[in-house]
Every structure is written in C-alpha cells, then in structure tokens.
C-alpha cells in the first residue's frame, strides 16, 4: 500500500512540481495569452483560478505518485510558484510594474495556491490508494 517511509521533505518532488508548473502552465499561458496583456485585475479573479487549476493538477500528480502526503513540498511549490509569477510581473517592464499586491493579498494568494495544491495531493493520493486496492484484489 502507500508507503509510510518517506523523507520529511523530498526535494525531488519540489523540483519536479515547480518545474512542471513553469513548463506546462506558466510558459504556455505566457505564450498563448501574453502576460503583459493579461489584465491586472484578472490576477485577483479568473486568472488566479486558472493558475490555481494548474497547481491543483500538479498536486494531484504528486499525490498519486509519491509516498505519503507531501504537504511540505506542496507548500514549497506554492510559495515558489507564487514568487515566480509575481517576480515575472515585477521584473517585466513598465506595464506590469503597476501590479504590486499588498502583503495580505500575497498571503491570500499563497494560502489559495497551497490549499489547491494540498487538495490535489489528497485527491491524487486517494486515487492511488483506490488503484492499488483494485490491483491487489485482482492479484
């Protein structure tokens, strides 16, 4: 069944999860939609939901493939991803410099990203347990 022996913090999942978000969500989003033309106000709404979906999917993948419940990794991925998104906004020129979220807003984003990632992890884990149960019944 799902292994209990896992390191407290498996940095490999952090690297894979974070890079997957960059490669499979942030970069395609940039290529498709152009972050510079993405309205600033959208960051507080629909655009945020879009980013959150990606985080949840990556969380689901991690949950379904890793041992235990990698919540620390999820939190780290959420922090890094949020910093990257904001970093690109901050460092990318005149138009985006207008978007400087306040600290409570940043914390809210962080909480949201982490929650979505954690939910993804749990769902992925449940899916894996069910898959393993099914496989063990078959054997």
């Amino acid at each position, binding site marked *: 069944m799902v292994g209990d022996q896992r390191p407290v913090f498996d940095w*490999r999942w952090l690297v894979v999860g974070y890079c997957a978000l*960059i*490669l499979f969500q942030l970069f395609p989003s*940039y290529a*498709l939609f152009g972050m510079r033309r993405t309205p600033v106000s959208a960051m507080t709404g629909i*655009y945020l939901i879009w980013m959150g979906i990606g985080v949840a999917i990556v969380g689901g993948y991690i949950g379904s493939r*890793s041992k235990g419940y990698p919540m620390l990794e999820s939190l780290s991925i959420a922090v890094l991803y949020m910093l990257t998104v904001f970093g*690109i906004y901050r460092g*990318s020129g005149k138009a985006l410099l207008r978007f400087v979220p306040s600290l409570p807003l940043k914390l809210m984003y962080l909480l949201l990203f982490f929650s979505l990632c954690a939910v993804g992890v749990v769902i992925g884990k449940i899916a894996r347990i069910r898959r393993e149960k099914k*496989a063990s019944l078959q054997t």
Partner: protein
Amino acid sequence: MNLKTEPEAISGQNEPKSFTNTFLVQISVLAQLAVLVMIFAERLGLSTYRRSLTNEPFLLTWIGAINSISWLDEPGLLPLSNRIIIFSSMLLSFIVFPTVFLFGWRSRRLDRAHGVAAPLRSLGMGSIAYVFSMIATMFMVITIGPVTVFQQARYVSSCENNNARLLRYNVQHEIDVLTASAFQYRILPKAEGGGGGSYLGYGIPDTLARTDVAEYTAQVSADTVSYVAESAFCETDRMTVKLDPNGKTPVWLMQGNWGSG
C-alpha cells in the same frame, strides 16, 4: 538522456518511481530557460504573442464567455461555441498533449531501461493516448514557428488597416480623463491624499492604465506629467501628451497611424 545508466529506483510494482538526477537537472534547466524567455521577451517588448486577434486576453474572453458575463454582449467577438472550441483545442494542444507525451515518453524509457514489460506498449488506451499526444505535440512544435510568423504578419496587416482615426479620438478622450485626474491630485492638499501643489506621488489608476483601446504610462515630475499612450491594436500607434502645472496639455505628439490620420 541515457536512462539506462542512471540509478533508477523502482523498488516494487506498487512503489512510486523516483526521479533520476539527470531528469531533474534537465527539467530544471528547461524551466529556467522558460522563465528567462518570458522575462527577456517582456523586457525587450516583443509583441508576437502580446495581443490576440480579438484584442482581448484569450483566457479572460473565453472564460468570460462561458460564464455568460458581459462578453456575450460585446459586438464583434466570436460566438460562444467557437470560443469554447478554440479554447479547448488550445488547452489540449499546448498543455494536455505535451504533458501526456512527455510523461508517457519518460515512463517508457524507464520501463525499457529496467526491462520492465511496459503495459503501455500493448495496444491499449494508454498507448493510443501516448501516440496521439506524440503526434499532436510534434505537429504543434513544427508548426508553431510558421504560425507565429503568419500571425504576426496578419497582426501588422490589421495594424495598418484598422480604424486609426476613431481609436485616436477614443485615446484622446481617455487622456483627457487621465490629465483631469492628475490635476485633481495636484490641487488637493496632502492631508486629503493629494499632491499639495505637486504631481509627485501621482500614478495612473489601475482601472485606467489599460483599457480596450490603449495602454497608458506616465512619467511624473513635480510640475509636469508626460503620458504615453500605446494603441492596443497597433504598437506603432503612439501618443505622447505633456500635462503642464496649470492642468493644460499643450503638447500632443502623435506617431504611427495616429500621426497621419
């Protein structure tokens, strides 16, 4: 990547596979490159992907349409069914297919390296999904360059043909609103959140900084504000306006189609 030489850990059938160091390095390098591309593209002001053909951010338009927000009332936008189709195809071709293909490819390489009989190699749903994703991904990789060039050419073409004069009037009107807000800021005392006789501290409100017709930036000094408006449709259409200490705008510099219209 030669996975056969890597210390892969597949400790049991139910144990999750661990990632090799080579894989981690490669995916990290790719992610770093992606971030650098995004930053440099923004820094250099590359416009290739900057605006969609409908001049709206794609995602917001599609999701807005799905949610039946005011986008449906906007004239000139595509029908809802078309938007859903286009949005779905983009999600599939840019995100879903490459993801399925890359992870399927990796899984096959690992299975082959360890001599594990890969269930994917049988003609099942997984195999079909893998092959289909591979074809779609390859197709996208090969065609993205020409499509981008074509799209850019089309964008430039529409840039030359759009109704520049009408846009210019709209932009002029919006700049009037901006200058009024700046002057109002200047004449307000500092205690009431104004500039107390100076423009210093003034910034374009977020809601006005980027509209349907243009993007606005402002350079602020104590007695003047220089606005630059850049058309949302055509990057070469620019307008520079200087606001003087009396709230007047004696200098209007038009460039591109706006200068000749």
